[in-house]
Every structure is written in C-alpha cells, then in structure tokens.
C-alpha cells in the first residue's frame, strides 16, 4: 500500500510538494522555537558554570521575596567577610561589589538593547572568572576595566575615557585594562566592567557593604559541607549557596524567563502555522480524492475493500507526513538561525551557542507533523471509501457527501459551543494562568474550526458579493472567476479558512495592540499635566537628584520625580505590586489624579504612613479609605500604611503611591524612574535648557510629553513588528494552500478553458479569471479573518477592561490587511494562471 501511496505522491508532484510544504513550515516553526530557546539556555548554562567555576560557596543578601522584575536587594555588611574567613574549612573568602548602571563613551550612552550593564569590583583571586588580556585591573579610584567585546565595539584602549552613570551620579573614569569573562569576550548583550572595590561602594550606594562573598573550601571540605557550616555561622540575611547551585539558579532564572514569554509566544505562532497547514492538507486530500474518484471506484469494482481504499489514502498521508516532518526539523534549524538574525537586526543581543536538536524537539516535531497530517486526511479518506463501484462508469468528479454531512451544521454548532466554553473558561475560570491560556487557545482553535465548517454554507453568496465589482471591471474574466469560486463552496471555504486563521490572529494582535496603545495614550493624556518627561535610556533609573537639579532651570515651574520599586503586600496571600514614591507637595502640579475617593488635598498630608491606592490594588487588597495595610520591600523592610485615597490609573501609576518620606522608609536608595516637568517658556528653548542642565547625565532623555508617548507607542510597535514577522509564516502557508487549490481547479477545468480559448478568449483573459478567482478566495479569507480577529480582540479586551486596555479598531490597518489578502491572492495565482493560459486548445478539447 505504501508503494501505491508513493506512486500517487510522485504522480502529483506539485500538489504533494505544496501540501507537504504547509506541514513542513509548521513543524519547522515549532522545532525551530525549541532549537532557538534551547540554544539560549545552553549558552547561559555554559557562561554561568564557567563564571562560578572556582567558587565553592557564594553568599548574597537574602531577598524577602523573588519577583519577576529582579528587584534589587542591598548588600551584606563588609565585616561579614572576616566572619566568613573565621569559619573552619574556608580557604579563601573575598567580598565584592556588583551593580547596574550605564556607561557613555564620547558623551553617547552605549546601548545594550535591554541587557544590563554590569559592574563588579576586581578581586585578585583564582576564583575570578576574569582574565586580563591587555593592561591591568583597576587599582586606583577612577580606573575601570572593560570586557574585550566592549573594547572592540567602542574602540576603547588603555587610557580611554569612559563615563559611568550610576544611581548615585555620574563619574569620569579611564580604562586601565581589558579582560575576558569566563573566556568570553562578551556575555550576551550585557556590558561587563571591572571597578575598584571603593569605587563600587561609592557608585552603588553600598558604603560599608559588599554585594557578594565568594568562598573556596579548604582541601578535603566539600562545598556542601562548607555551605552548611556557613549557614550555621552567619545571620539570616546571608543567603548561602554552593557555586554549583548558584550557577544552576542563575541559568534556571534565564530558562524561566524564556519559558514564560518567548517559548509560549513562538510555540503558539508555530501552532497557528500547523493549524493553517491542517486545513491545507485536508483540502488537498479532499481534492485528490475527488479527482481519483473513478480510480477508487475501479478498485472497488475490482473487489478492493473499503479498508484498502482507506489505507491507500492514509498511507499517502503517512508518507507525506513523515517526509514533511523530517524536512521540517531540518528547516527548523534554519528557522532558529533566522530568529537569531532577526533578533540581531532588531538589536536584541542574546548569547548564542551552537544550534542543537534535543530528542524532545525531534519527538514533538514528528508527532505534531505526522499526526496532524494523518488527522487531516482521515475525513477525505473516509469519503473515498464511500465512492460506489458504479462511479467508475459515471462522468464528473463530485464526491459522495460524507455519511454524516447533513449533521455538519449541528456538529459545527457543537464545536462552536465547545470553543465558547473554552474561551469563557479561560477568561473567567479558575486554575493557573497557563491552564487558562491553554483553555482560551483551545477555545479559539475550536471557534476557527467551527467558522471554517460553517463557511461552506455562506461562501457562495459572499463570493458572489465580493466578485461583483470584478464582474464590472472585466466582464468575462470577472464573471467566470466569480462563478468558479462559487462552484465548489466547500473547497473555496477550506482554502479561504486557511488564510482566515493566519489573518485572524494577525488582526487579533493588531486590534489588541491598538487598544493597548490608545489606552496608554488616553491614560497618559488624562493624568499627565507635565510639558516634559525625563526618563533614562536603556530601562535604567535616573540619578536621584535629577528632579531637584531641574528646579534650578529658570523656565521650570515644577519638577517632580516618580520613584518606583517592587514590593509585596497582603496578609496570608502575598501579592507583588509596585510602590510609587512621589514628592507630595508638588506632585499634583504635574499629575491629575482621577480620584474615586479623596482629592488633591490629601497629597501634601500623606506623611510617612499615608498611601493612595490604584483602584485595582485597593480591590485586590480589599481595603477602603481609612483601612490599614502593610508592605514589605525585597530587602525585608516592612512598613504599615493607611489608605487616604483611591484613584483610577490602570496605565501609569499602578499599585500604591506614597510620599517620598514614606518611600525612603522602605528603600533608602533612590530608584528614580522618571521626572515630570512643567515649564513656562517656548518649547524648543526649554528643552534645550533642560538638556543643558542634565548634560552630565548622558542616560537622561528629555522628551516633550508627545515625544514620550511616541517612544512608548514605538516600543509597542517594535514588539508588534516582531509578531507580525512571525505570523507572516502562517499567511505564506495559506498562500500555498490557495496555489494548491487553484492548480487543481485549473486542471479540472482544462476542457472548459480550451473551449473558452477556442471561441476567442485570450490568454490574458484566462489568466485574469484565475487571478480573480484567487483574489475572491483570499478576500473571503481576509474578511473572515478580520471579523473573527476583531471579535476575539473584543471579547478579550472587554474581559481585561479593568487593566485599562480598551477596545479600539485600527481602521487603516484593517484596510492594509485586506490589501495584504488581495496581494496574497494575486501572488498565489501567478503559477496556476500561467498554467491555465498555457493550456493547448487541441489537447484540452480531447481531454476528458
């Protein structure tokens, strides 16, 4: 049977190729995702295990809770290093400082694309992962050493000036040496710098403290044993880990970060591609079966069992599924390399190691590819078994309807109901976020399938409607195209559905993002009264005195900063939220609170124990004005607050807002996120004045309110473009589906086309009619996709309305998507149209 299947595949090379391509690309996206993220995890594994190689035990400050935002915790007392050295079994112990900031070369901040710029003090020790390739480690204040990759990129040599920007201020330094870290000349996109111990303490506000103590064990003492001893000897605030554990934890954190965002996003995009592929396979096999109707009838007449007919088709699907999946794995490696290149092009620097295909990747790829192919071929195969032997003697290529086809509307309704259930369960149900997202995804898939099943009932009138303008433009070609696309509604529906899914997801993303953007802009406009926003580049914080310094600029009326840190609230069930610290007396001049309870007069009276809550936080804490609640910082500091007011602001000041004095109780170090400025003078002059006042803080970016909004919207757009790029794959796959259908339609209509040519139709008219048919199909898919995408986005945004995301339809973009649908149709038609136009009249007339 496999041999028959193989023959059939070879006999229809183009169709087999296009069908296989659909599944191949889906498998490639899924396996490529794994290869891509595995590679990142592995790269970090290697780096961290190298970084902690000589270190047996490492001690850091205990964080009272771990947050996704990597909240900064302070250091350990410097004296603890001596305590550690005193513990039996310790061979060597060194304390050092580490911190994050930014550097500038020639007044320009060195961009990292979101990765951190890490400083750590140099310790002359065998433990250290740094090794100097040029010059010497920093020894005097104002000396700094840079990692090799940075020196190369920025053209730094011994003696080059480098400006260091830390939360405490800006410092001028000179390069004393160049090093490699863990034998790497760079660590992903991060910048690494060595400082002296004293500079580190000064820059990172760690006077009398160390960030970390690294320990080597004496001979014969195992790291585990030493860690146990140290834990016993040191106070609670010291978090003791073996080097191995610390390396594992660090790379686990990376894997978790990948696992919670990049992996699911890429995998679901791969899933969309596979789903699109499934429709194409289903369609291709349906068409194959219809075409080979007589062949099956003949087989049956010759005594073949239904089972054997069934086998000959599923066998073909199996061969195709295996081939496409295996090739898909290979292409997946290329896909991973492509994503690497894309990231690089978008300036997202990630460490890469060699691309590896883990057994898990192979298994998932093969299972998904083969099972989807087989599943999609089952219904057509079943229909083939229903071809009666007598069909061998009949004209035409219509298939008997599937046995239960009259139940299709009911089945579709049931599938739709299940889909709605899944969506509802995902949005309102209980369970972990992953479970709920999964329920929503399954619900969405089922809804797509239901729409696809039902679409054969309305595709004909819709095609008639869409085709109408074409019949005006070009009477014959338009008319033929329209009629042909209405001729086999099930086929047109399945072909269009493939595009519907890809475009539907694109539209969903677009509408959702539009809601996000317009909500942000509206939210910003509503609350921000400032003329200027000063924020730090590279997701850093501003020096703590920025707001104060700007007050001295003559044109400035008010300059008020917002400090932000992550804190934990609540009683038994702790939740993480943001704590905003503002200057109580001036903040209302730059900020217009949307009060639910309270008014601007409560602000100056906040003191050290008054707090304002954003509506949602108030609700989740279950507190009203007058109630008290407590907050804990990552360092473990606790403070109690009384609710003095409640406001609505889901976009900007989420969480808890307190006065600076209260903020300092929880975190003495400044974490200035932005400064809002109102000014009196002319815009251009003011901006220049503000920039002048901050000339020595290269990370400070002075923006007008409008520029700030543009920047935020721009960063959403950047993410959007990445998503669009990946979703394009699904659209391309559905394009192949249209090609596939058209090639077959043209083939089936050879005789008609010959007749048309004989009575005077030109090649151009034939080409055009195929192209129009293609466009009608693709526009149906596009319109359906846009509708479904808008509905999904509406449902989801309504559900998450509380988070401040509004429902907003990007009209102009939808037009663009429709144009894309038309372009897909035109492109898909190129090959089939050419084939149709080349049909030889004589051959066509003799063709049966």
């Amino acid at each position, binding site marked *: 049977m496999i041999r028959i299947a193989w023959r059939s595949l070879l006999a229809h090379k183009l169709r087999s190729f296009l069908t296989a391509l659909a599944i191949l690309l889906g498998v490639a996206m899924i396996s490529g995702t794994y290869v891509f993220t595995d590679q990142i995890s592995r790269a970090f594994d290697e780096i961290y295990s190298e970084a902690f190689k000589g270190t047996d035990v490492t001690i850091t400050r205990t964080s009272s809770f771990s947050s996704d935002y990597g909240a900064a915790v302070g250091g350990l007392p410097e004296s603890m290093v001596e305590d550690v050295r005193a513990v039996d079994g310790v061979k060597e112990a060194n304390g050092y400082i580490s911190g994050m900031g930014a550097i500038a070369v020639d007044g320009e901040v060195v961009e990292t694309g979101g990765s951190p710029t890490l400083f750590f003090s140099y310790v002359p020790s065998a433990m250290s992962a740094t090794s100097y390739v040029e010059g010497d480690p920093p020894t005097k204040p104002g000396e700094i050493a840079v990692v090799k990759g940075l020196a190369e990129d920025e053209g730094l040599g011994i003696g080059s000036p480098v400006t260091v920007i830390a939360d405490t201020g800006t410092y001028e330094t000179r390069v004393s040496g160049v090093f490699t870290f863990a034998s790497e000349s760079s660590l992903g996109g991060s910048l690494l710098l060595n400082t002296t111990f004293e500079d580190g303490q000064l820059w990172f506000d760690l006077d009398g403290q160390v960030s970390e103590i690294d320990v080597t064990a004496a001979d014969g003492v195992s790291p585990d044993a030493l860690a146990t001893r140290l834990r016993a000897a040191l106070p609670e605030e010291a978090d003791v880990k073996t080097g191995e554990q610390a390396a594992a934890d660090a790379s686990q954190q990376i894997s978790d970060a990948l696992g919670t965002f990049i992996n699911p996003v890429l995998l679901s995009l791969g899933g969309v591609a596979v789903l699109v592929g499934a429709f194409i396979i289903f369609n291709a096999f349906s068409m194959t079966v219809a075409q080979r109707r007589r062949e099956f009838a003949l087989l049956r007449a010759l005594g073949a069992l239904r089972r054997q007919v069934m086998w000959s088709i599923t066998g073909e699907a199996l061969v195709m599924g295996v081939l496409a999946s295996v090739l898909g794995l290979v292409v997946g490696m290329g896909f991973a390399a492509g994503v690497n290149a894309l990231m690089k092009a978008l300036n997202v620097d990630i460490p890469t190691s060699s691309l590896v295909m883990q057994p898990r990747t192979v298994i998932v790829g093969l299972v998904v590819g083969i099972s989807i192919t087989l599943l999609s071929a089952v219904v057509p195969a079943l229909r083939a078994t229903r071809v009666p032997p007598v069909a061998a003697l009949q004209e035409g290529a219509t298939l008997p309807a599937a046995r239960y086809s009259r139940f299709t509307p009911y089945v579709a309704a049931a599938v739709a109901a299940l889909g709605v259930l899944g969506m509802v369960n995902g949005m309102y149900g209980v369970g972990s976020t992953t479970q709920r997202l999964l329920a929503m995804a399954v619900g969405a898939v089922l809804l797509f399938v239901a729409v696809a099943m039902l679409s054969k009932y309305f595709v004909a009138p819709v095609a008639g409607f869409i085709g109408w303008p074409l019949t005006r433009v070009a009477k*014959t070609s338009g008319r*033929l195209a329209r*009629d042909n696309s209405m001729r086999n509604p099930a086929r047109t529906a399945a072909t269009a559905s493939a595009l519907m899914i890809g475009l539907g997801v694109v539209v969903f993303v677009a509408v959702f993002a539009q809601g996000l953007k317009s909500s942000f802009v509206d939210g910003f406009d509503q609350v921000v009264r400032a003329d200027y926003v000063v924020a730090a580049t590279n997701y850093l914080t501003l020096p703590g005195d920025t707001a104060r310094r700007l007050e001295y600029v003559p044109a400035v009326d008010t300059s008020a900063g917002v400090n932000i840190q992550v804190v934990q609230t609540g009683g038994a069930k702790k939740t993480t939220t943001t704590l905003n610290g503002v200057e109580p007396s001036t903040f209302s001049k730059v900020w217009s609170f949307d009060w639910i309870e309270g008014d601007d007069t409560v602000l100056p009276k906040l003191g050290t124990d008054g707090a304002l809550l954003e509506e949602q936080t108030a609700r989740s804490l279950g507190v009203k004005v007058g109630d008290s609640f407590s907050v804990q910082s990552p360092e473990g500091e606790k403070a109690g607050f009384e609710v003095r007011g409640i406001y609505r602001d889901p976009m900007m000041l989420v969480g808890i807002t307190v006065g600076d004095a209260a903020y300092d109780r929880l975190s003495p170090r400044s974490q200035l996120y932005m400064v809002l400025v109102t000014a009196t003078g002319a815009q251009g002059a003011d901006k220049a004045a503000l920039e002048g006042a901050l000339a020595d803080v290269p990370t400070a970016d002075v923006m007008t309110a409008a520029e700030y909004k543009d920047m935020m919207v721009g960063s959403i757009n950047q993410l959007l473009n990445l998503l669009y790029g990946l979703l394009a794959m699904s659209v391309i796959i559905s394009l192949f589906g249209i090609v596939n259908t058209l090639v077959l339609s043209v083939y089936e209509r050879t005789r008609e086309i010959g007749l*048309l*040519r004989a*009575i005077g139709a*030109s090649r151009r008219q034939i080409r055009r009619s195929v192209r129009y048919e293609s466009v009608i199909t693709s526009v149906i898919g596009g319109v359906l996709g846009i509708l479904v995408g808008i509905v999904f986005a509406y449902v989801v945004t309504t559900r998450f309305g509380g988070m401040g995301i509004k429902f907003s339809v990007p009209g102009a973009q939808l037009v663009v998507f429709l144009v894309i649908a038309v372009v897909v149709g035109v492109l898909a038609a190129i090959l089939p149209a050419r084939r149709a136009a080349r049909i030889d009249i*004589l051959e066509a007339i003799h063709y049966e």
Partner: protein
Amino acid sequence: METMDREATQTAPAGPACEASDLDAADAVVVARGITRDYGEGDAAVHALRGVDVDMVRGRLTAIMGPSGSGKSTLMHILAGLDEPTAGTVEVDGIEITSLKERELTQLRRDKIGFIFQTLNLLPTLTAQENIELPMTIAGRKGDGQWVGQLIDTVGLADRLDHKPAELSGGQQQRVAVARALVGRPAVLFADEPTGNLDSKTGDQVLDLLRRSVDDFGQTIVMVTHDAHAASIADRLLFLHDGRIVYDCGRMARDEIFEVIKSLEDRR
C-alpha cells in the same frame, strides 16, 4: 514527395463515382494549399495529412467524411487555426493564418471563426442565454440584440434561456452551441461531429438548424461527420482517406454516401 502526393489526389480512385461539386471555388472563405501534417519523426512518424488542397465555398455547407483515422479532425483543426500544418498554407477570409501569432489567432477566432464540438460545448456555470452571448462578452462587444433574438427563435429555446447546461438535454445543449457559434456571424463555422452524441431525432433538429443557417443567413459551415444522414444535408462532400482527399462531390443522397464510405473502408 509532395508533388507526388498531390498527383495522387488528382488521380481518380477506383470505385463508385460521384458527381463532382459544381461550386464556384473563386468565392472561397477558406483556402488551403499543400497541407501536410506529420506526428512524430522518423520511422514512427504518422502522416495524418499527406497534401491536401481545398477551398471552402462561401455560404455553403461542406461535409468532411472518411474512415476513422483518415485525418478529418486534423484537417478541420488546421483549417480553423487550432493546429499548425507541417507544411502548406491556409487562408481564412483572406488572412494567411499559418504564420499568425498567438494574439492574432485569438483575434481571428473572435472575428471570423465559430466552433461546435461533439460534446461539452457550454460552460456549466452560465445559463443558456449567457452561453450564447459568451463570444460577444469575451470580445467585449455589445451583442446585436435583434440578431441574438432571431437566433434564439431559430434554435427554438426561448423558454429555456435561464437554464444551466446541466438542466438541458443533449440536443438542447447542442442547439445552444449552434446559436453560440453563430452569434458572432463568423466567416466560417467549424463543427466536429456535432450530432455524434445525439439520437437521430435530436440530431435532426441540430442538422436542420445548421442547414437553415446556411440557407437563411448565408453562413459558411464546415462539418466533420461519420454519419451519412448528417452528410446528406451538405452542399458538398469531401472524402478523406489516409490523409488525402479522395472524393470531392456535390450533394449526395444517403445511399450514395454509404456506398462511397463502404468502398473506402474496403480499401484498407
């Protein structure tokens, strides 16, 4: 070689004689000279036509007959510009067509030629009326309403105009095809066994239609047929045998035609 073939054509064959057609070859719509058509090359070559000279007279119905494989369809295709001869020239309504480019051939088919095939003459998605008007639509011309009406009357399908081909009988379909072929007032109408798939009664209706279009509208028709009865309505009959025209006769009765056919079949 070619001259020899041509001489062979001229040689009167042994067998039943027919009255030579008395038509005036000076007024010819289609003029073919020295047509040969070979399929394949070398030893395996099939000589479908071995040198045919023929003039199709304006306003007459010419039937092409001959045993299966004698080259009837091949000749018709070449005369209609659907196929290219290996050698020889064809003029349709004064235009030399063997050297025309694809685009010019399309134009020729629009302006000067009508076709009726044995089966599947109509587009299944269009109604009868739309099928009839199809050549005009394709050419982007405004149909002559009066002429279309007259044709519809002639083919007698006024009450079936809104039906799709699948809802029409085979005979009705062929009548629609005749109307479709006539709608552009082609210089010449080619029909390849137009009644081949019909029973004698419906076949007669179609033949009657063809005959009337010649008599009433002065249409020129070239019809390939196997059927002696169909051929008996022709003004002139050409008999092909082995790629050559062996008889060129005027009107013949059915019995006479049978006799010629029989003699040709005996020859092999």
